[in-house]
C-alpha cells in the first residue's frame, strides 16, 4: 500500500503541472496513467504538431511541452505508474483506497482526475461475435511473439504497428497483411520493406479488404475478408492481429458515483472539486460554465485543485498563499539553493 497526499489520474500536461502545484505547497503525489509513456494526448496523438497557445511559449510541439513540464517537476522525484489504470476507489473514513488493474494499491486523502477524455485503449474489430476469440486468437498487441512461430498470422491495419509487425513476424511466420485501402500510412522505409517482402513471397498483401466474419469454434479455422466491391475471400489463419490505433474511453471512472455530463465531470470553479468530497477533476475531463478545452485552462484548474487538496492532506494546518519568487520555503521545496 502506497501512502500519498494526492493521487493524480492522468500524466498529460495538466496532470504534470498539477504535480508542480502540489509540490510547491508541500503535498506529495503519485501519478497513474494507462499509456506506456508520459504526456497524454500531447504524446499519443500529436507529438510533432506545434502548439501555439501556451502562454509565454510562442511555439512548441506536444513532445517539447511534455519534456519541459517534466523538467519543471524533476525536483519532486514523482513516481509514475504507467501502463496502469485505476479500477476501484473506495472511501475509508477520511481516506480514499485505490486499486489499479495491476493490483497496485494507494491510500490517499484526495484524488485529482486529469484523465482527458479517458484512457487510451486499442480500437477493436467491429465484426459481431468476435469477443470469444479476443485475447486468445484475435489480438490487438503482441506480448510474446514466440506464440506465432510457424503459424499463419493475418495482420489488419495500415500504419506503423501493422507494418512493423508484418516485417518482424515474416521471419518466423506466414504473414498476410490486410488493409482497407491501397495506401499505407506508415514510414516510407517500412512500406518499401513490406513491398519487397511481398515480391520475395514472404508476405501476402490484400488491400481494399476488411474483416467480414470469423469461422471456427474456439480456435479460428478461417476468416472471411470482404472487398470494397463486396466480394468475399476466405483465408486460413491461426491468429488475427488488429492495429487500428487507440481510442479514448472513460472506463471505470464512470462507475465511481461521480456526476457525469456526457463524458465530462461537472466541478465547482472554486477548487474544481466534484460532487464527491476529496475528488477533483481538471483539464479536458471537467466541465463548468464557460469551460474551454485548452491546456492553459487545465494549468489554472490544477493550481486551484492542488490548494483544494491541502485541507484533506493537512487538516490541522492552515494553507498560506506564497509566491515562488519570494518564499524561502517554496524555494527549498523546489530545491533552489540561495
Amino acid at each position, binding site marked *: 500500500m502506497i501512502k500519498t497526499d494526492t493521487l493524480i489520474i492522468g500524466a498529460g500536461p495538466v496532470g504534470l503541472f498539477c504535480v508542480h502545484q502540489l509540490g510547491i505547497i508541500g503535498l506529495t503525489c503519485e501519478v497513474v496513467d494507462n499509456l506506456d509513456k508520459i504526456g497524454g494526448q500531447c504524446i499519443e496523438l500529436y507529438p510533432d504538431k506545434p502548439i501555439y497557445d501556451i502562454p509565454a511559449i510562442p511555439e512548441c510541439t506536444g513532445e517539447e511541452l511534455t519534456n519541459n513540464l517534466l523538467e519543471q517537476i524533476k525536483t519532486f522525484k514523482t513516481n509514475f505508474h504507467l501502463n496502469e489504470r485505476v479500477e476501484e476507489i473506495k472511501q475509508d473514513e477520511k481516506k480514499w483506497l485505490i486499486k489499479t488493474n495491476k493490483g497496485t494499491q494507494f491510500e490517499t486523502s484526495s484524488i485529482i482526475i486529469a484523465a482527458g*477524455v479517458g484512457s487510451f485503449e486499442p*480500437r477493436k474489430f467491429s465484426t459481431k461475435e468476435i469477443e470469444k476469440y479476443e485475447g486468445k486468437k484475435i489480438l490487438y498487441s503482441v506480448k510474446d511473439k514466440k506464440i506465432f512461430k510457424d503459424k499463419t498470422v493475418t495482420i489488419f491495419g495500415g500504419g506503423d504497428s501493422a507494418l512493423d509487425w508484418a516485417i518482424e513476424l515474416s521471419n518466423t511466420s506466414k504473414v498476410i497483411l490486410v488493409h482497407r485501402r491501397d*495506401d499505407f500510412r506508415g514510414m516510407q522505409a517500412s512500406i518499401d520493406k513490406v513491398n519487397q517482402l511481398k515480391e520475395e513471397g514472404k508476405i501476402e498483401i490484400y488491400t481494399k479488404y476488411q474483416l467480414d466474419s470469423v469461422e471456427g469454434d474456439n480456435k479460428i479455422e478461417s476468416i472471411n475478408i470482404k472487398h470494397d466491391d463486396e466480394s468475399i475471400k476466405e483465408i486460413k489463419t491461426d491468429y488475427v492481429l488488429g492495429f487500428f490505433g487507440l481510442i479514448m474511453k472513460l472506463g471505470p471512472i464512470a462507475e465511481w458515483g461521480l456526476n457525469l455530463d456526457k463524458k465530462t465531470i461537472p466541478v465547482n470553479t472554486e477548487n474544481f472539486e466534484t460532487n464527491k468530497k476529496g475528488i477533483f477533476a481538471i483539464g479536458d475531463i471537467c466541465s463548468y460554465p464557460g469551460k474551454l478545452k485548452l491546456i492553459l485552462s487545465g494549468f489554472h484548474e490544477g493550481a486551484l485543485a492542488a490548494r483544494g487538496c491541502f485541507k484533506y492532506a493537512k487538516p490541522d494546518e492552515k494553507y498560506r498563499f506564497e509566491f515562488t519568487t519570494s518564499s524561502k520555503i517554496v524555494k527549498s521545496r523546489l530545491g533552489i539553493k540561495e
Partner: protein
Amino acid sequence: MPKITYLENNGNSKTIDVSNGLTVMEGAVQNDIQGIDADCGGGMACATCHVYVNEEWFDKLPKKEDGEEDMLDMAFEPKKNSRLSCQLIVSDELDGLIVSIPSKQG
C-alpha cells in the same frame, strides 16, 4: 443559413440550421445530435466524428486531405463515403447536405 440533415443511428432524422464557417461536427455537438463524439475537439486526431455522406453529396464536397484518410483507417466501419465531420466546413454550397452517423464511434 445552410441546413444540414443528420441521420442518427436510432433512425431519427434531424435537420439543423448551421452557420457558415462552423464544421458539420460542431453543428452536431452544439445541437445534441447523438453519436458524434469528437473526442479530440476537431483536431483530426481521433476519428470519433466519423460520418457517412449521402451518395449524391459525396463528390460535391472538398476532397480529403491526406491526414483525414489516415485517420479514417481508425474509424469504426469506414466505407467509401466516410468523412470526418470536423473537416467539413459549412457553406452555402453545403445547404441540404445529408450525413448518416455510424452505429458507434469506436
